[in-house]
Structures are given as structure tokens and as C-alpha cells.
């Protein structure tokens, strides 16, 4: 069920990109899609009653130089978290680029409405 709500968020973002006619709104749609995918990835790694994937001192079995079994059986999946960290920075980068294009377009046309920005045909 949480997956379904996440997918709904993705679809809302897609709707915004497809239907809205304002440049900033389109950017918001893309951002919403990004949030949805990030949440989805983190949810995939969640374990009920899990703990964060950071090994604390008392979870290390010093004698055997091993991580305690209690940690191994309870930690959430660190891999999706690493992927999401990457995805967040990528989305920040593309946000900066697309907003700079929006600002420059605003300077040229004086509007954010893409129906008024139609020099190219087709």
C-alpha cells in the first residue's frame, strides 16, 4: 500500500508535466516525480523495526572482529540509500540547469507561459 501511494505521487508529477502550461509548474512536476522515485527506492530497503545502517560501537563483536548478528538481522538495506543520495544530487543539478534556462527564457519573452513561447513550429 505505501508503494501504491508512492506510485500515485509519481503519476501526479507526470500529470503536471503533461498538462500544465507554465514553465515553473512543469519544473515542479519533474521535482514531484523525483521525490516519488526517491521515496520508492528508500521504501524498498526498509525493514520493519529496522535500524539505520550505521554500525555503533556496541554492535561490534571486538573479539571476533565481526559485526554482531543483531545488527545484521535488523539493519535496513544501505544500497538504495546510496542510490538515493546520488539521485538527490543529480536532481539538484538538473534543477539548477532547468531553472537557469527558465530565467533566461523569461528574460527573452517576459512570460513563463509556454503557449506564448512558440517560435518553433511543430
Amino acid at each position, binding site marked *: 500500500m505505501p508503494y501504491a501511494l508512492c506510485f500515485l505521487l509519481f503519476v501526479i508529477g507526470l500529470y503536471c508535466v503533461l498538462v500544465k502550461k507554465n514553465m515553473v509548474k512543469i519544473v515542479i512536476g519533474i521535482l514531484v516525480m523525483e521525490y516519488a522515485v526517491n521515496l520508492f527506492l528508500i521504501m524498498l530497503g526498509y525493514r520493519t523495526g529496522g535500524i*539505520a545502517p*550505521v554500525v555503533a560501537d556496541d554492535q561490534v563483536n571486538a573479539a571476533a572482529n565481526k559485526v554482531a548478528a543483531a545488527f545484521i538481522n535488523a539493519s535496513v538495506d544501505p544500497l538504495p540509500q546510496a542510490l538515493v*543520495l546520488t539521485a*538527490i*544530487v543529480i536532481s*539538484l543539478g538538473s534543477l*539548477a540547469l532547468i*531553472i*537557469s534556462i527558465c*530565467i533566461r527564457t*523569461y*528574460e*527573452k*519573452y*517576459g*512570460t513563463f507561459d509556454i503557449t*506564448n513561447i512558440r517560435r518553433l513550429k511543430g
Partner: protein
Amino acid sequence: MKGMTIIVKTISSWVKMLIFLFGLYIILFGDTSPGGGFAGGVILASAYVLLMLAFGGDFVKQNLSPSLTLKLVCAGMLAFAAIAVAGLFYGPDAFFWNFITQKWLAGEGSNLHFINAGIIPLAEVAIGLIVCAAIFLVIFTFSTFKFDVSDNQKE
């Protein structure tokens, strides 16, 4: 861009050091506690953004010019790439080989004991530099961009 009142200026010049220290802490302890180069770098950048809002763009421009910032980003990227390539020379032909930890685990290079996570803290510092400079540069560019609508108004 203009600065703000004297109260804001005084407070932000006090607060900036705290933010700065916090960012450094987050970066340097990224291998043992949550956080790391990205979060810490963005916090460092926000210290500069605070200064920029309080004292105005010109003040920051004198202390940290955009071209210098761009060079810092390049330096950070080159440092990160150097860490990656170092694995090729120190190790058995492997890009991004963790040459400190792996040698330590293998019982060689005992003089490198002091950092037992190997390249991870070094890479955190490089990424912190990249992210801090890059984010600051982006926000600086956006805030100082002047609209020149006069000659390009809707035709």
C-alpha cells in the same frame, strides 16, 4: 544586491563560524556517523549564502569571486579524480582501489594506520569542496543575474 541592517550583519557574522564548523564536522565524521561530503558541503555553502544575503553580493564577490569559486570546483573534481586514479598506481591496476585500507588489511603500509577508512574521508573532503563551491556558485550566479528585458520584450 544590497545588504541588510546592522543587526542582521552582526548576528550573521557570529553565526557563520558556527555553521562553518558544523559543516566541517559533518564532512569529517562522514565515515562514522550519518552525513558526509554532500550534506556537509551544502551546509558550508549555506554559510556563504547567509553572508551573501546579509552583506550583499559585492562583499562576497570581493572575498570569494565567481572565477575563484569555479577554480575551486575544478580543484575538487581533480582531487577526486586523483584519488580514483591513485588506485591504478598504488594498487593492482584498479580504478578506485581503496589503497590505504586494503594495504592496511593486508598488513602492508603500516605508516598509513591513522585513517582506517582509507580513501573514504579523503573523498569526503574532496566532495565537500566540490559541493560547497558548486552550490555557492549556482546561487551566486542566479542572484546576480540581471534581467535585461528592455531590448528583448515580447516581439
